[in-house]
């Protein structure tokens, strides 16, 4: 397998929703070997953080991977400031264990908000393995939804749920699960990716309904190779490293509350950093 040393150039940049942008990035080493469920760690520029981003799609022939990123802090703001043709300093991967694709009959793939992007390759993989894939796209409101066509192509059926009823059915991801169970009877597997509260409540619902559920976690990481342990979560009472043991875990075993608290650790620093970034940007110097 050929080894590339090319720069990680942005081939395509497209806004999908407010503050949500798709980046197709030249990363042929990653594109050739990535599997569903894996992620990359990027560092936008010198002095930047290392942040994990799930690979939403890949084209090995073109040597590109697709990342969908919500602008929330300094690193994602730095990325959002890049244009097509610009280079991302570092892209390392694919990282994490791939999704364990079993031979299943009916799989429900739930993507909540930005979580639609990481659930996309998993839907693709289950469909390729012959499962009937029902995808559920959830968001607060219609504007925040994206990948409608991509998810339709990766699924046998797509349902849309919005909190405010502005598109599809009014309701939450948990409502979608109950609706689908009522309709189909048996569901072999639920895959739920999205904000931590969504994954938590979907997992609580499916536990009650006795449906195996995988969630994909996106905690703070540094190296992404098992070296630092910053991404540890409690699963089934034991500490696990999301970067090498995950990112997918049994949703019924994950301590979501602990994860939420760990995610908030740098809240003040993140605000300070973003303020610093904007101050530098307005002065026209690199933050």
């Amino acid at each position, binding site marked *: *397998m050929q*080894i590339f*040393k090319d720069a990680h150039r942005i081939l395509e940049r497209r806004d999908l929703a407010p503050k949500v942008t798709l980046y197709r990035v030249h990363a042929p*080493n*990653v594109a050739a*070997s990535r599997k569903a469920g*894996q992620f990359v760690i990027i*560092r936008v520029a010198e*002095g*930047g*953080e*290392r942040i994990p981003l799930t690979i939403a799609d890949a084209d090995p022939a073109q040597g590109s991977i697709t990342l969908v990123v919500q602008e929330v802090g*300094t*690193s994602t703001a*730095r990325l959002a400031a890049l244009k097509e043709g610009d280079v991302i*300093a*570092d*892209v*390392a*991967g*694919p*990282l994490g264990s791939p999704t364990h694709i079993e031979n299943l009959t009916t799989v429900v793939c739930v993507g909540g908000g930005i979580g639609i992007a990481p659930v996309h390759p998993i839907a693709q993989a289950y469909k390729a393995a012959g499962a009937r894939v029902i995808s559920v796209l959830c968001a607060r409101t219609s504007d925040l939804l994206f990948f409608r066509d991509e998810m339709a192509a990766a699924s046998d059926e797509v349902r849309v749920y919005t909190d405010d009823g502005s598109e599809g059915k009014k309701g939450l991801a948990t409502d979608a699960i109950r609706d689908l169970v009522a309709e189909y009877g048996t569901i072999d597997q639920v895959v739920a990716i999205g904000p931590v509260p969504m994954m938590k409540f979907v997992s609580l619902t499916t536990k009650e309904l006795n449906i195996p559920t995988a969630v994909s976690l996106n905690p703070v990481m*540094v*190296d992404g*190779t*098992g*070296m*630092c*342990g*910053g991404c*540890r*979560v*409690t699963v089934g009472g034991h*500490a696990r490293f999301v970067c*090498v043991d995950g990112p997918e875990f049994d949703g019924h075993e994950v301590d979501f509350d*602990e994860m939420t*608290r*760990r995610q*908030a*650790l*740098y809240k003040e*620093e*993140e605000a*300070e*950093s973003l303020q*610093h*970034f904007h101050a530098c940007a307005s002065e026209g110097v690199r*933050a």
Partner: protein
Amino acid sequence: MSEKTEKERAPKDLKQRYATVRQEMPCQDPSARARNFQEVALGLEIEQALAEAYRCIYCTKPDCISGCPVGIDIPGFVHKVEAGDLAGAAAILRESTLLPAVCGRVCPQEEQCEAVCKVGRGKATKGPVAIGRLERYVADWERAQGNAPAPVIADPTGKSVAIVGSGPAGLACAADLARAGHKVVIFEALHKPGGVLVYGIPEFRLPKAIVAAEIEGLQRMGVEIICNFVVGLTRTVDELLEEFDSIFVGAGAGLPYFMDIPGENLGGVYSANEYLTRVNLMGAYDFPNNDTPVVRGKRVAVVGGGNVAMDAARCALRLGADEVRLIYRRSADEMPARAEEIHHAEEEGVVFTMLTNPLRYLGDERGRVTGVECLKMELGEPGPDGRRKPVEVPGSEHLYAADTVVVAIGNGPNPLVPRTTPGLETNRGKIVAQGETGKTSVKGVFAGGDIVLGAATVILAMGAGRDAARAINEYLETGNW
């Protein structure tokens, strides 16, 4: 060699040599340096270097060479220093070591070359020759001159070797293989080469510019370094074997141990790897000018007694902590850290709490650590490693306040290569490799450093890298496995 030769060789001024005091390393003042990230040890002055080199007594059978894991011709380079021929001294160092400026700083010389130096023996001794300080002096002098001569490289062999990991083992292995004329490509998972030299050892102990200069030297020899390439995942070892004639795995001990006690996942509890990586590699000491933050605790507890624990404790001081407490379950005598590091940490104000072991961490409603509950320990019977085992003292629970905790109790081998390489024999996660050669159970694949030894030292990893390079040369030449 005969006794007569030794006498002939022996300098006439032995008495004076023995009477010369060991030169102290000039250091930044402890109170100042505990608040900055600049290098602590400033390096000898030229007069000191000459005086120190003069302390060598020209043994016929110098033990120091065998005390060095990479077999540096120590008397040879020391005598060049004594004669004022620093370029000559540098050339001798370069024959055996790729990283003299690094090793002069971080090698545990007191357990190696200096431990067996004959000058250090006897009642009246003023201590062994300060070999490490001299090595550093020569390497720093050479770097300051700029344009160190590139080593002679053999004609291209047409063979290629992939090196997994750019830490000390991989760099040393790469240097010897490049010198032998092979095409060498180093694959590094992180965005910057150097491994533990850049993510782990702090700037104040090993300036990163020095590591960068040593790596540039390697690149001038034609070694290619590809960063952001995670062997095992980006490409497997088997896939690399399709492109390369041989592979050396020096992936390091990159999997931190935790104690598996309650509260370890509270916010503000770090592995030493994470804490040091944030501070050193990601530059969190200069937040928000660098984007990566680290919790800047006012009361920091560091758990462990090794060099890594000392590094973490001293970083915490420099990040502005009011109190840094090092908690170690055995007594000071058993601490695995270098004497010099312990001494520096003490001088800077780290509080040493010995014979104490964490029981659990306490946190607030936001899930952030607020304290560590500990038990007193006492030393019991010697364990398998000869060190007396710490035993809990019942009912001795007590509490220290802490808003940051760094767990520095060691590392296991990184699992990425072992997990993804079928047929690669491991023992408790460590790759099984033959002692002298680094040969693994997979043909063409060699391994060395912490991925084989478990967490050890920079110089041992370099030694393993060099041993493997010799074996790889032989394998590439003969094809015999």
